[in-house]
Structures are given as C-alpha cells and as structure tokens.
C-alpha cells in the first residue's frame, strides 16, 4: 500500500486562498481524515489528490509517482491516477445496473469478460450486495447505493481510496452502522484511505489520524486522542468537541507546571506542562473539556489547586448525563457530569492534566 505526500498545496479561488500551503503525509494503510467546517478546503484538497482540481502551487505524490507538481508542470489526468473515490452523492450511474456500474472500470481496463464477471461478483459479495447485481440504482436505498459506490471504487484495485463525505446523505442510525462497516472493510483490506468529513464524531471514531483544517490552513495533525485532548489552538479546541476557554496570564513557571492567573479574578490554575514548549510569560488561553471537570458539593472540604466555588445557573438533563451552566465569579463554565448535584452553590475541580495551553493566535 502506498503513502501519499501532499506538499505545500496552494489553491486560489478569485482572491481567496482556498488552500494555503497544505502539507501532510498519509501513511501506508491508514485511514486519514480531513476534518473541518464547510469551506475549510478539505474537499478541495481531496479533489486535488483525485485530479479534479488543479492547485496553483505545491506537489502531490503517491509512492514514487508524482501526481502533481506545479513547479515541474506535472499534472496527471484524473483518469490516469488509478484512485478509488466515493462521492458525497455516491454518483452511481443511474442508467446502468449495479453490475454495469462495477463492470465499467474493468471494461475501461480491457479486462476479459469472464474476469469481469468473477471480479464484480467477488466485490459485490464483499460489500454484501451480491443479490442486487441486476438492479438499477433508483431501486436501491441510500445505504445500498453507497455500498455500490464503494464497490465500484474497489473493483479495479485502486492504489488509494478517497471518501468525500460519504455518510452525509444517510440518516443517523444508518450512518453509525455504515461508519463501523466502512472502517472494518478499510482495515481488513489495509487500504490507504483519505476521508473527508465535517462531522467530528465521524472523524474521531473512524480515523487513525486526523488533520483539522480551517480557511485553507492546516490547524493540527494527530491521532483522534491528540486532537481532542491536546488541541493545538483555539479553533481545534472549539471545533472538535465542546470546550471551556479561560484567558489568563502566566504567573509562575517551573519545569513541570505552569501557574496561570485567570483574567478578571483572583483564581489561579495550575497546568501540567510535560516537556511541552509553553510560554514563560504573557497572556495565554487555557482549554478544558466539560466532561473532564469533577463536581463536588459546596460543603466539601476539598480545597486544593484548581478547585473553585461557583453558582449553578442552569442544569439540563441530556439522557446519559447532565449539563451544568456554572458561573465562577464572572467566568461561565459548561460542565458535564453523570451526577445530579443538589444546591445552587457547587465546587468544581479541574484536573491539571485536563488543561491544555493553546497557541496564541495573534503570534
């Protein structure tokens, strides 16, 4: 299985930079996700890899083959890249049966008729659509069409699989099943896959690694855990999951912890800084997830670092947890907890490890 190298892609639409020096490498056999809001450049990146967009600058290699290189004026035609792609709309050709849809890529490659039949049958079996070979697309459900689209992208053994928001047209229940199924298929085939989505749950649950993009700029590349627990900046923290943000100024600093005094109050927060590069002084933004906070009764005697007292403004019951809207002084916090705490006063404890220091955007 090949590796994909995307180097310094720049794509300009009008006077807007849709891609701004996008760089990443996809490792062999991994499921690599491009995550971001609409218009962040993730689809443009995918279409550039597929050959449907021509960036102004940069370079794309798959293994030793250069697909695109602006400097050397290399741009291999989409049809010569031998990639499998599943589109958001599935793009299953409506005038062909399921069999004909799958046979088309093989006919293009002049595969013998007998081989076409056996290959198509095998791949349809793989996506559990064997009995639908003679159906037309409009006779299939959305989920089935998606399987056909996937089968069509696999039948000619492409180097790389590209998935462009393939689940966004499925309803919620079906989507969850489809995710698990595609992930398992991808893993069992060991197929290098680039996946585009705006859905953070999808990205976190399926990916080996994620690249978070915004306005054409790569924000962070890492495992789902990295991106969720140690967001590189404010955008990533806010886009991937929910987050509490606290502004402050570095007050003290030793090798292992940084103490930040929170703006507009006398509170201090100690942050674990294991070997990371942290600002030694000046303003910082701290982030922590609502579910990482521990709630304690107001009368609790615990009074240590990172434990504050606050007012409960509102509580919402969301089935598997409660969501608290708590004000510590003038600082609003969102906290998730399985427990229903009584009373209007409450203590919150924010573990040191749960806090991350975000890169200063203005820098």
């Amino acid at each position, binding site marked *: 299985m090949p590796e994909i190298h995307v180097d310094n892609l720049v794509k300009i639409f009008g006077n807007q930079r849709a891609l701004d020096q996008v760089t990443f490498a996809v490792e062999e056999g991994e499921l690599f996700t491009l995550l971001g809001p609409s218009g962040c450049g993730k689809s443009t990146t995918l279409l550039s890899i597929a050959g449907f967009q021509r960036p102004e600058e940069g370079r794309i290699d798959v293994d030793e083959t250069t697909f695109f290189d602006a400097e050397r004026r290399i741009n291999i035609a989409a049809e010569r890249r031998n990639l499998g792609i599943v589109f958001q709309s599935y793009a299953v050709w409506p005038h062909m049966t399921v069999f004909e849809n799958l046979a088309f890529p093989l006919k293009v490659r002049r595969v013998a008729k007998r081989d076409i039949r056996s290959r198509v049958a095998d791949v349809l079996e*793989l996506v559990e659509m064997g009995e639908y070979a003679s159906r037309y697309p409009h006779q299939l459900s959305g989920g089935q069409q998606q399987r056909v689209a996937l089968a069509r992208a696999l039948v000619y053994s492409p180097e790389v699989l590209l998935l462009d928001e393939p689940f966004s047209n499925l309803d919620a229940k079906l989507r969850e099943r489809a995710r698990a199924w595609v992930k398992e298929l991808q893993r069992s085939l060991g197929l290098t896959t680039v996946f585009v989505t705006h859905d953070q749950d999808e990205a976190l649950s399926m990916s080996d690694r994620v690249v978070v993009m915004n306005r054409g700029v790569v924000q962070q590349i890492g495992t789902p855990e990295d991106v969720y627990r140690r967001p590189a900046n404010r955008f990533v923290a806010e886009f991937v999951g929910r987050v509490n943000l606290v502004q402050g100024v570095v007050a003290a600093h030793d090798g292992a912890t940084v103490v930040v005094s929170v703006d507009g109050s006398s509170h201090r927060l100690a942050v674990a800084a294991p070997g990371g590069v942290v600002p030694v002084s000046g303003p910082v933004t701290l982030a922590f997830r609502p579910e990482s906070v521990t709630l304690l009764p107001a009368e609790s005697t615990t009074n240590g670092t990172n434990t504050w007292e606050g007012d409960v403004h509102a509580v919402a019951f969301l089935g598997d947890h409660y969501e608290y809207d708590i004000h510590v002084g003038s600082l609003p916090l969102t906290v998730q907890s399985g427990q229903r705490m009584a009373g209007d006063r409450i203590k919150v404890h924010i573990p040191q490890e749960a806090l991350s220091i975000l890169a200063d955007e203005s820098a």
Partner: protein
Amino acid sequence: MLGRLSHAGGIRSSGSPLTAAADATSSSSTRQLPRPRPSLVPAGALQFLTWALIVTGVVGPFLPLLYASVRDRPLYEDGGLFSLRGYREVLGDSAFWHAALNTLQYAVETTALAVVGGAAIAILVARTDMPARRILSRLILLPVLLPALGIVLGWIVVWGPGGYLTLLADQRLHLPTLAINTIPGMSLIESARLLPIAFLTCEAALSRADSSLEDAARSAGAGPLRVLRSVTVPMLRPALLNSGTLIFTLAIASLGIPLLLGSQRGINTISTYLYLNWTNGANPDPPSVSAGAVILLAIATILLIVRNRLLGAEARFVSIGGRAGRKAMLQLRGLRWPCMAAVTLYLVFSTLIPVLGLALMSVVVILTPLIAPWHLLTSDHWHTLAQAEFRQAIEHSVVISLAGAILTTALVALATLVAHRSRFPLRRTLPFLMLYPRATPGLIIGIGFFWAYLLTGAIGDYLRTSIWGIMVAFCVRDLPFAYVVMYPTLTRIGEELDRAGRSVGAGWWLTSRRIVLPLLRPAIFASFILMFVEILNDYDPALFLVKPGTEVIGTIMLSEFIQGTIGPVAALALVQVAATVVVLGVGAALLKIRVTGEHDA
C-alpha cells in the same frame, strides 16, 4: 490489487465476515490489473474540433459580410477596392431611413402587444382559477411552433386585402375591418406569433417565484387586484424586460410578414428594404445591402448584449425566489369564463383561423364569400403538389431537416459538454456563441453565408449550388434551440457522475460517451425533434441562397405565392403545419414513453 487485497486479508484474518469475504476474493484472480489505456481520440483535439466547428458556423458568415460591406463592388467582380461607399449609399438613402422608422414602429408595437398579452395569459394560467388553464397553457405554444410563413399565408388568405373574412365583413356585413397590410395590422400578426415567448418567460418566472409573497400581501390586507399590481407584476419585471428585448429583436429581423403584407403597398422595413434591394434584378447593389445588413447586425448584437445583462438580473431575482410550492389562486369569480374566452379567442385568431383558411383555400378554385365554397371544390391544388417543382422542394426540405437535425443535435450535444463539462481553455466562449444566432436576423445569416460560400473556393461552390449550403445556414440559425433544450438537462446531471467516470479510469470522451450522453438522451431526442421542425419551417436565410433546383418548401411557397399561385401554396402550407403537429406530437409521446420507460426499467 485484488491480489494485494486478499494478501492483506490474509495477514489480518481476524475472523470477521468482512475479512472472510476479502479472503474469498483471492480465489478468483490474483492478477494485477492493467492500467487504463489512454483513449485513441485525444480529448483536447475533439474539444477543439467541436469548438472550431461552432465558431466557423456562427462567426463564419459575419466576416465575409463585413468584408463585402467595405468593398466598392460585389465580391464576385474582380478588382474590388476598400471603400465605405456601401455605408454612404445606405445611410444616404431616404428610403432606408423611412424603412428604419417603420421598423421601429413595427417592433415597438409588436413588443408591446406580445409582452402585455403574454404576461396576462401567464398570470391567468399560473395564478388564477381560470378554467382549462392547463390545456390552454400547452396550446399557447402552437403559434411559435407552427411554420411562421404558412400561418402568415393563412392570415392573408383570410384577412388580407381581398381575403375571405375581410370581404365578408366589409361587403356583406358592412363592418369596418382592421387592414392587416398596415404597420399596426402587421404588428398584430407578428405579436400573435411572438406572444408565446413572453408567455413562456413569464410563466417560468411565476412558477419559480414563491407564491407566499402574494399570500403575505393578501394577509396584510391587499385585495387581489392590489396584489397583482403591487407584488406579482413587479416580480415579473425581469421576465418582461428579458422577453421584451428578445421579441423586439425578432420583430426587427422579421422578413415574412412585412414582405408579404407591407411591401406590396410600399411599406418597407429594414429587412424588406434590404431584401428587395438584394433581389432587385435591374440594379442590384450588394455592397450597400451588405452595409445595411452589418448595421442591422450591430443593432441585434447590442440588443443581445443588453439581454444578457438582463438575464443576469433575472438570475438574481430567481435566487431569492423560493421553491415552487402551493400556488396562490386568485379567485376570478365572474371573470373566470370571460378570461378563458379571451385566451381561447387568441388561439382561434392566431392559429385556428389561419389554418382553417389554408385548409379551405387548398380545396377551392377561388375563395370568396360571394359563392358558397362547396360549389367551387377542386383537388387540383393537391395534385399540383405532386408536380416535379413542388415535390422536389418537399423532398429537399425533408432531407435537409433530417440531416440538419441529426448533425446539429450531435454537434450541439458535444459543444454543450465542452462548454460545461470540460477543461477546454476556450469553453466559456461557447454558450454565447451558441445563443448568438437566436438574435441574428435570418437575412443576415443568408447574406453572410452567400458571401462565405463565394469566398471559399471549391467547397463553397459545392455548398452554393446544392441544398447543403441552405442546410448549413438553417442549422446555424436554429442551433440555439438545441442548446436551450440541452443545457438545462445537463445542469440536472450531477457533475460527480462524470467525475466518477474519470476516477475509475475513463477519459473525457469515454466518460461523455458512456455516462453523460446516455443520461442526456431525452434532451438529445427532444432537441432533434425541435431542430427537425425548425429547419423544416425555416425560410428566410434560404431566400438569399436558393437557386433553381435547390428550392425548399419555404422558398417555393414564398415565390409561388408572390406570383399568385395561391391554392397549391395553401395546400403546401397545410402539409407543413400537419407535419409539424405530427412530428411534435409523436416526439412528445415518444419522449414521455422513453422518460418513464427509463424510470421503470
């Protein structure tokens, strides 16, 4: 990769059904697949060829025309020099200025009548509870689809000086009649023919616009008429401007009606002025006719550019319009039936009476209210159609309609794909090029091709002396219809469908041939039908290209009619009307079957 695929499955056999399936594939073939081969036809070459053909066809006739207009003598005479004499002659001729004024009056009156009528019928059909509005909205299209020349002849037979109804009203009933051989009379006939254009544009705008806008005005306390005046009509403004410009352009370019009615009484428009100068055997002056044609072309082009601007404005209006939902129904109450009667009356006058007139004329020796027609019955006119002259023209028309419709449909289908589904560098010029002939007067296309054939050696000579030259001119004139039919269908075919084709290894041409064109099939068929009918009924470009032995239906009808051979011409016009109705009807029926057939397949 199935080999690799099974290999991977083997390594990670975790026992899941998917892995098992992946394992299963290993038995079938472990061979590496060949890479797709590049297509034999390079896409770039094919796209360039398509573009070049369109450019040649559309721009081709204008360059020789421009050249001919700045020479001191006709191009077929040796030793011409650069000269603006043609322009001086035309602009210095008081008859030209007189014709220009007539043209202006003619076009303004035609546009006003057609736009007001078309908008009114559109509102009645789309926004009121008028009875039979659905079937009426289909029938309204007949006047633009039926052969223009035949219908005009029908009008003349019935309503012209000495026409059946004119004599009946004047001599028997002593009623005043509107003389149709005056400018207002001619505008009335022209507007009846062009009204459906305004109707179609307005109806489309109304069905796109959200009728909750009107509901909101109603609930704010406005009465139905107030809503009409303050909401509906302002909403139609872009459609009115847009269709008005097109109708104005077409009226300026109109040749048949002014030629048959006006010029007999010395009322000329620019079109007839140019035509009569061109055909004036005693003293022809091609350079000045060409100069006049260039002036007319410039006016039409300016109007087209204005219209393109307006279309942009309309698009802005459309984008804020909601989806077609429930239609607000204006209660007409007591006016329901009178409104329906008015619309029906329009259809009777624009279509039924001329067609009936033709039918009657074709079976009587002479059509007069003084003697009952059944005393004058004859089948001579129909027999005349079987004579060599007429038969040959009919054969020619059928041949060039068939061949022209096939060629144009194929070329426009390709050009539409190049324009909207390729990366061909000059693709953006194609939509404008393909719409341009719509606003170009037929006589300009005729004169332009005449010069073009004259200047292109052996090929030109062959085209000039055969029916194929006429076919090419008709194809260029009518190709906007093919594009207008195909483009909207193409926009409904998702671009991901052809990208999917490219991604699995098919080049541009293979993707077009196997995926996009098959999906475009209903539109291709519809455009073939429409092209066939349009070419069959077209005539004015041919007036400048026709030679003895290359006559087509339109040219022979006009020349025979002017010579007074009215009966056989009426029969021929009737044949043309019948052929149009049958082809359109059969086409529509087949299309319905094909479209639904594809759904049920």
